[in-house]
């Protein structure tokens, strides 16, 4: 792969991959690491991909697998049974409320969603992948993707509603990044 081709690939996908990584890792440095690692894996193994139309799906799949591999043993894994049971209709949150929120607040709300729902939900909202591609990337059946989207949206809207009631507070980590004290 030429440098130019690799650069084009990076430019086309790195921002979406980073945002996906950020939703999973909940840490900007870890998300950067994970995104870089994904492209390194592409650089060493990606040439084996014959259908270049699937490179986007390949990258998201690889990032998710790298995330699962790097996750430390002992970290709490949310079981579907333990996940908060929600009714079919999510908590009410208005469009105007979300529109007025800072992007980092919405991301923070997403990061509070149970991990098992967070991955498909992020991929859905980044809109780069169809539900079928999400199913392939996460290696779960299509029905499971739909179920997790449904429950994930419910949780997300509950978190958004909670944040809207407490005010538009920028997460502390974001604040520390922006305000550097010498």
């Amino acid at each position: 792969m030429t440098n130019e081709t690799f650069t084009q690939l990076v430019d086309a996908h790195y921002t979406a991959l980073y945002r996906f990584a950020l939703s999973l890792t909940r840490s900007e440095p870890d998300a950067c690491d994970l995104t870089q690692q994904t492209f390194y894996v592409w650089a060493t193994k990606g040439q084996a991909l014959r259908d270049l139309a699937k490179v986007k799906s390949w990258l998201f799949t690889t990032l998710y697998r790298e995330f699962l591999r790097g996750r430390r043993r002992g970290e709490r894994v949310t079981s579907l049974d333990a996940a908060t049971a929600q009714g079919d209709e999510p908590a009410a949150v208005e469009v105007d409320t979300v529109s007025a929120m800072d992007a980092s607040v919405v991301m923070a709300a997403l990061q509070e969603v149970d991990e098992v729902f967070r991955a498909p939900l992020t991929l859905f909202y980044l809109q780069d992948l169809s539900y079928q591609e999400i199913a392939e990337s996460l290696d779960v059946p299509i029905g499971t993707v739909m179920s997790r989207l449904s429950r994930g949206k419910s949780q997300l809207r509950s978190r958004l509603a909670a944040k809207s009631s407490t005010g538009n507070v920028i997460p502390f980590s974001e604040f520390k990044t922006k305000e550097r004290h010498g």
Partner: protein
Amino acid sequence: MDNDEAKFILRAYRPSGADAADPKFAEALAQAKHDPSLAHWLEKEQALDRAVAGKLQAVAVPSDLRESILVGAKVSASPSWWRSASFKMALAACFIVAIGLAFNYSLARRRAAINQVAQVAIEDVLHGHHGNRGEAVAQLENVLENASFHLSNGAMPVNLTALESNGCRTLQVSGSNVAEICFARSGRYYHLYVMDRMGGMSTKPRIFEHDGARAAAWTDEHNSYVVATTASAAELKNIL
């Protein structure tokens, strides 16, 4: 299809309209056209999805990330993996172990009638006292020799600085300090080499072979590792 089933399907319908031609959604979309309450629900659902998607797609990306990826890939990734620094280091580790072990096993074979004390002495040279062995080394050895611990699972309890300052045997390989710890599992001996994290290495172990010795190389978020042995590939994989 009732409205609950339609809503279940339509919650996966991307607000960009990219799924408009997907037959999976056809029946639910048709139902929404004829049912005002479902249509109203879909309109609100899509509006909220667009708002959330817009916010997530606006999340700031670190300004130096693109450059880090491009420069890092040039420096670290190589299509010819056998030219990479990580492979050379693993090969060097294999070579070092193979030379050391081959010499001592040749010695044991030449002295067929060697008594028990001499055998203990050979094992001590192979696996024992390389420099002072501080608490950090002892603690790590206890973990490594635990049969239920898998080395590449991402939870290696290593503090490289503590190991080096505790007098753990340290090699210089390709300009990098490499701490070496020996341990045994099921009667087979292994040498673990620990170094600062190297970019471009996989978190999944890669196995290399050279002159009857084997090495596995991998990285985690803190360090990079090579474990070398003359045990079989299956035994090596078993401890990973």
